[in-house]
């Protein structure tokens, strides 16, 4: 709680510095930055008064590092796959890795799911909706 209060305050002040240009474009950001900083201090103050000791429980009781990592890795791999490969590897990697985040996931089931979603995605987005995504550069002859 305190962390974010301070974070908000810091953010507010950073915006202030970043936008002290002439009165025109910088005016509102500065005002808002100050308000946000004030609110941050208010929140930090309130939690400091009421909570006392335990202000460190930001991580929930059961941390899900595996789940979190996989959910984050999914879109990241989508970017990597999309940049180097195209739609097919992007979709496949994204779904496959993300589905591994579930504790009950098995390799086989994830593969099937990823393949299925990839197929659906390519048909729907590439052929039906015509999203301009190279659906695999090595397959550009399709």
């Amino acid at each position, binding site marked *: *709680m305190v*962390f*974010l209060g301070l974070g*908000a305050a810091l953010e507010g002040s950073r*915006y202030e510095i*970043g*936008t002290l*240009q002439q009165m*025109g*474009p*910088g005016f*509102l*950001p500065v005002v*808002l*930055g100050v*308000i*946000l900083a004030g*609110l*941050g201090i*208010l*929140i930090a103050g*309130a939690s400091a008064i009421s909570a006392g000791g335990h202000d460190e429980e*930001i*991580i929930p009781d059961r941390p*899900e590092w*595996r*789940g*979190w990592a*996989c*959910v*984050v890795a*999914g*879109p*990241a791999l*989508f*970017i990597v796959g*999309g*940049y180097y490969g195209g*739609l097919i590897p*992007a*979709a496949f990697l*994204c*779904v*496959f890795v*993300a*589905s591994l*985040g*579930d*504790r*009950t*996931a098995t390799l086989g089931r994830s593969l099937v*799911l*990823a393949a299925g*979603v990839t197929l659906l*995605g390519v048909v729907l*987005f590439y052929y039906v*909706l015509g*999203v*301009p*995504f190279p659906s695999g550069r090595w397959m550009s002859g399709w």
Partner: protein
Amino acid sequence: MVESALANLWFGFSVALEPHNLLWCMVGVLVGNIVGVLPGMGVLATISILLPLTFGMNAVAAVLMLAGVFYGAQYGGAICSILLNLPCHPPHAVTCLDGFPLTTQGKGGTALSITMLASFVGASFGITEMIFLAPALARTALEFGPSEVCSLMLLGLLAGSTLARGSPVKGLAMTVFGLLLGMVGSDMGTGTERFTFGIMNLYDGIEIVALALGLFGIAEFMKSVNRTSPVESRYVNVRMRDMRPDAADLKRSILPMIRGTLLGSLCALVPGTGPTIASFVSYATEKKVSRTPERFGGGAIEGVACPEASTHSSVQGDFIPTMSLGIPGDSVMALILAALTIQGIVPGPQLISQHADVFWGLIASFWIGNILLVIFNVPLIGIWVKLLTIPYRYLYPSALFFVCIGVYSATNDLFGVGETLVIGVFGYALLLLGFHPAPVLLGFVLGPRFEENFRRAMLISRGDLRIFIERPISAVLIGLCVLLIAGLIYVRLRRKRPAMRLSVRMSPD
């Protein structure tokens, strides 16, 4: 006035019944219904995923579809609450209290059919309210100058951030944060780069789709991965035969339905109090009014009918400030406004007259959509029930892919996906810290318009802030803001200890 409203409505039906629009309306309610039924899928995430798909559609179809998702999900959410005791959608959390006991008593079918009926009654009233109120409101709002618009937005933002879930101060902080995010990119007046940190892709500002999908897609998945318990499917075999309510149940739920409808439509008019608050208030009222309050919580059909009717009437009523003033009451409405903006339609009081097809078509589609939903839900209840058993481990990876491709197709750039990812991780951190991210979106959508009007007002008054209290309407609105803040502080100081229990009990999650 009634005649012109009817003529307009007739026009609306002719728009909404065009095959193209009808089709998208159907797609919208169907998708909404599915999403509502599936535990762990949010309306906001769905609308944000669908948002990029609307770029290629015409404006009417786009709005019909997105709105359909919103109210369709309300029908689906009720199924989930009653049969599984899972409040996957906050407005239906109260419905669990009496809906699930009814299911365990073998009367789940009855509860469902009463829900459908209540929903339809509530929705119809909400739509009627919109037909008469929205144009009148818009006519008044046409007189507004920049200072009034500015004050109105201020009130909307304040109400939206403080009356929603969670702590008001945190909500406010999130709104301000959203306003700041709305300022990323080139400044309208001067073209100065703000908060872009030299990144080219940020010059056009943050993509609304990326923001919405980050906050309500990725952050939600991170929250619910490995956390959704396997579905208790013991009671879910409901068939159409079980859906016929007997006369006694029907009779008992008529009055609660009407009460719920009225309460819901009132809640819709107060900015910031959406369906969730409406359903809680109406459940509490119904319990108080009832001669047998002890039956509540143990399977009272009134406890299902009243909140459901009020949810639906407020869902429809939510569109009133959005369509007539251009001020969204919550984040779903903010997204629908964004969809309009993308279509090149400027939201505001001039919308009803300038884009009559959008406004009246939308109203007519509400009715069509609600009828479609009743048709979908009654005979197809078996299919929805089956959907309930799809495990989350298949859902979220697929949804994640749709998030990625959705953002990509909105921006045609992989940078957008990265943007979403960063926002998502940040959004999850906020969630863990007890900040609800919905007001961010509200601030983000209203931010640029707020700034524009604020500056215009300052130009008119030559930098004199008193313009806001010298013009009467603006003064009233500012007064309401002050009242709201004063009220919040008062409540805060009063309830320190004794009412803590109440607030814990009343909070939806």
